[in-house]
């Protein structure tokens, strides 16, 4: 697993533990700001909660003789908050506009604006897609509406407890309810889904107890089975799905009597019809035949029971899965609110109060228990409105402090300021996209990327192929194929011909690309998750990444005359302005005098190649790759 890797950091970290984190600033040192969240127009809940968080953070590090860093400059804050909230750097114009603002409320306003922008959905989606191991192909060729459903929940800001409840109780077919993707992802592996659910939503890793009593934690194998029994009635197969017409289609296909594409469409339709999540399995969950402990017999049927704080007995009228979901998402659950509060804190601070964020256990204590308790309380107070919670965290002074020079680990980190982080693979991809195309956030991916037929039949969820004759099925498939051709033609026309001669390759947000990307893809090289294990994304350096930056094809897009960057450069009236455009576009800041000197000299010495040389250099800076 590649969640957090601080091993070497841990070795050197000791040296830094008590060092005061006050380092000289970079770039425009002059623009250090006044404190942000003291304005009266901030909503009182946000203002008071943010202040209380700051107090608790201070109390947490006071004992360790840690002193807070200075406040971020506007330039530092701007870039960090864009990346943390919408997953990309600001555009040239956004950076220029913000840095020119004199509005004392500009930070709060920017936070509000970003939280309500489409980029918020994209960035949050990438996070959950990694946690949920979301792939756009489920069970071989089977494709679901799951990704679309997930984006929609984030867009609507569905309260987190409700979101999890919808996932855990999802039933029906994927075309009607994308949330069933949660169960289809690990089709038929109910025990696995149990350990995954516990890890993601309760931050507790009980997977070991699936095969034996947990060696380091308190969980027994029998407890695991009792817990898993809540989902034992869940099945994904729709066994009533076998009409004579469908059988006829299969025979025709085997005899080669159907056109290839028609056959393919029908195969997918039949397959997607064959999956339906329901609670109709009556076999129950039995202990395995080699069960070796005294508290149960091999083959014994197990009754559902939760692993801690059992209040589920009271809910007698609900199905087992509903009881389970109620208990998981309850405000009384001792971990549910804490885990999401800690996750969202870790996302913007760099390290969780409990770290790794999905390992709440006896041996892994929170670095500041009072802070974690308070944040969990805030999460409950806002009724699991994650956006509102983020608004509070982003408005803390703690979040807005400058990052230090230390190699923080969970052992020396006292939540004193956001830590230096390499961008995620998606943030790097989306940031290059921001510099390259002007309308990145409005660009939808190829709809077909979601996996084919489901999207095509998506408009007609009421169509029931089990009631069609074989002829009707073939006609239906032909219509779907024609529709798809039509829509692809439209798309091609929209994206190319209206801007004839101005074509840039189809660059979209990473969240709009079919995932997981193939091995060797830019995103994968930079550590995007293979979606095989929970939280499998990483931000480690590698040589192939460097080769991408040094020699990759991305540079050709950046220097394309139609790129957002080159258009902005073309508008600049002199070399100095061009250099400002370059620095604002890549680093969201103005150059310092030394940098201006170097760049001006380059433009003078290298003529027309100077711009391209500077673009290459800026794209290859560490500063570009990191969030400070």
């Amino acid at each position, binding site marked *: *697993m*590649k969640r957090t*890797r*601080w*091993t*070497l950091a841990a*070795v050197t970290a000791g040296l830094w533990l008590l060092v005061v984190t006050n*380092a000289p600033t*970079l*770039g425009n040192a002059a623009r250090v700001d006044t404190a942000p969240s003291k304005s009266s127009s901030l909503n009182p809940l946000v203002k008071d909660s943010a202040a209380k968080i700051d107090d608790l953070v201070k109390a947490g590090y006071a004992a360790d003789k840690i002193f807070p860093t200075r406040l971020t400059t506007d330039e530092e804050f701007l870039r960090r908050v864009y990346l943390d909230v919408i997953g990309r750097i600001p555009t040239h114009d956004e950076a220029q506009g913000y840095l020119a603002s004199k509005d004392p409320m500009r930070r709060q306003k920017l936070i509000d604006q970003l939280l309500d922008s489409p980029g918020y959905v994209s960035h949050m989606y990438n996070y959950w897609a990694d946690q949920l191991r979301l792939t756009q192909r489920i069970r*071989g060729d089977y494709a679901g509406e799951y990704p679309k459903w997930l984006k929609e929940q984030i867009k609507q800001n569905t309260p987190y407890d409700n979101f999890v409840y919808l996932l855990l109780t999802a039933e029906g077919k994927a075309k009607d309810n994308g949330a069933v993707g949660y169960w289809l992802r690990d089709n038929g*592996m109910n025990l*696995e*889904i149990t350990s995954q659910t516990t890890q993601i939503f309760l931050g507790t*890793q009980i*997977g*070991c107890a699936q095969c034996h009593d947990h*060696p*380091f934690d308190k969980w027994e194998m029998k407890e695991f089975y009792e817990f898993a029994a809540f989902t034992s009635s869940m099945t994904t197969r729709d066994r009533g799905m076998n009409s004579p017409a469908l059988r006829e289609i299969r025979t025709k296909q*085997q005899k080669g009597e159907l056109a290839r594409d028609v056959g393919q469409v029908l195969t997918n339709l039949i397959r997607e019809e064959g999956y339906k999540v329901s609670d109709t399995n009556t076999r129950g969950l039995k202990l395995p035949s080699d069960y070796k402990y005294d508290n149960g017999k091999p083959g014994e049927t197990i009754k559902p029971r939760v692993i801690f704080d059992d209040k589920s007995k009271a809910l007698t009228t609900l199905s087992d899965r509903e009881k389970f979901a109620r208990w998981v998402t309850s405000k009384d659950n001792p971990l549910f609110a804490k885990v999401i509060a800690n996750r969202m804190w870790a996302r913007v601070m760099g390290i969780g109060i409990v770290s*790794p964020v999905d*390992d709440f256990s006896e041996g892994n204590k929170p670095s500041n228990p009072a802070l974690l308790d308070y944040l969990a309380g805030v999460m409950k107070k806002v009724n699991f409105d994650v956006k509102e919670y983020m608004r509070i965290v982003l408005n803390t002074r703690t979040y807005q402090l400058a990052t230090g*020079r230390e*190699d923080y680990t969970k052992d020396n980190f006292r939540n004193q300021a956001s830590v*230096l982080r*390499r961008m995620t693979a998606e943030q790097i991809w989306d940031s290059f996209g921001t510099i390259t195309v002007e309308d990145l956030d409005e660009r939808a991916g190829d709809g077909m990327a979601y996996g084919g037929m489901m999207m095509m039949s998506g408009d007609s969820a009421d169509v029931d192929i089990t009631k069609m004759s074989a002829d009707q099925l073939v006609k239906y498939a032909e219509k779907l194929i024609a529709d798809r051709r039509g829509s692809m033609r439209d798309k091609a026309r929209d994206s190319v011909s209206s801007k004839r001669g101005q074509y840039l390759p189809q660059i979209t947000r990473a969240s709009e690309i079919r995932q997981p990307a193939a*091995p*060797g893809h830019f995103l994968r090289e930079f550590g995007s998750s*293979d979606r*095989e*294990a*929970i939280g*499998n994304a990483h*931000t*480690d*350096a*590698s*040589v*192939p*990444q*460097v*080769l*991408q930056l*040094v*020699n*990759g094809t991305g*540079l050709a897009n950046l220097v394309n005359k139609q790129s957002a960057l080159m258009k902005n450069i073309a508008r600049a009236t002199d070399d100095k302005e061009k250099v400002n455009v370059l620095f604002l576009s890549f680093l969201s800041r103005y150059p*310092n005098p*030394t*940098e201006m000197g*170097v760049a001006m000299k380059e433009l003078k010495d290298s003529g027309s190649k100077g711009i391209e*040389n500077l673009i*290459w*250099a800026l794209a*290859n800076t*560490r*500063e570009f*790759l*990191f969030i*400070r």
Partner: protein
Amino acid sequence: MLKDLLRQIDHSTRRQLITNAAKACLGVSVIGGMNWANSAIAADATAAAPKKKNAKSVIYIFMVGGMSHIDTWDPKPGADTAGDFKAVKTNVNGIQVSEQFGAIGKHMDKMCLIRSMTSSQGAHERAQYLMHTSYAPLASVKHPGLGPWLHRLGGRHNEKLPGSVIVGGHRDSSAGVLGSAYEPITIGNPAAGLQNSKLRMSDSDFEHRRGLLDAIDQNFRNRYPQDSVTAYTRFYQEAVDLIKSDDVKAFDISQESAAIKTAYGANNFGMGLLLARRLVEHGVRYVEVTIGGWDTHQDNFDQLGTKLPPVNQGIAALMDDLYKKGMLNDVLVAQASDFGRTPKINERDGRDHYPRVFTTMLAGGGVKGGQIYGASDDKGAAVKDKPVTPQDFNATIAYALGLPHDKQVFSKIGRPFTLADQGKPVTAIF
């Protein structure tokens, strides 16, 4: 062998040696490297009885989708399950293979067929996962593939090149719990080689740009001396060294003669094998070459009729090439698939999934050639003798390299894993 070296030298030198090796290598984060160093020190000699000489590298050929055993390595002439292909003699008395593998058969004296493979998994995803990792899939953990394992246990022969390379790509070969330091590099198109390893600018432009980069980035690097930043600074140097080094040529099959390319076959599979040979020649420990299209539920014989000839040609050429270059002692060639296919031919003239018995091949690397290990029954329907599991197969590969298949490595949460789970090496074939 690195491991033998490690036993001889003292603790601190050992640690330094490994750390330096790890740091210098492709795809290795320093942090991961340190991890590795620490656990390598803890490595104990749990391997099975030592052999005289260990192989250095593995070329692992994987048929994605389940290759029929009866139509390739384990023909059943006369049986009602025999199918369309005849059995032909090989250059070893008493061993026959399918006529589709006639060219390979001329190298049977270098090969060992394990005709008693048996797997518990009959679905593609789970079967491929088991073959690659020795474990059944779990949602919460990704077990490491064979390449990352061998890299982890044995380190690298060439510090400039990656520990493992996957030609064609296979998700189950990823490093999983071992961490990104052991992640294989994937080559999609063998003819194109390593992505972005050729400069798109002149050397002088490159140096000029690096100068600019240095000037612009200096402030940031001084301001943030964190390991995550310095790792990049170091990898820039590594990448530049690689671009300029001769070792990068290991990825470039255009350096090979037209004659040898023709011998391997001008297709992705043939070129993949040729690239694999170049890579192991340059010290890459594990190269996997994958080829898909084996899920022959219908028209099995028509499909195999076009599928098998390039495989026959490619593997024969690889054997010939390794032999002539004197590399067969150092390189273990392995061939495997998800599972076999049903002896019974279905009404669509196809064969379905069959994990109960199938065949894998091992050659070189100390394995005695010209032998058959284990057997299937007369119809190719069950193991008749000496069953070998995927875990045993993987343990055997580790054994050939003199690496401990049963050495425990722990995940972040302290969960132990081994290369071969409970598998035991088939030592009788060496």
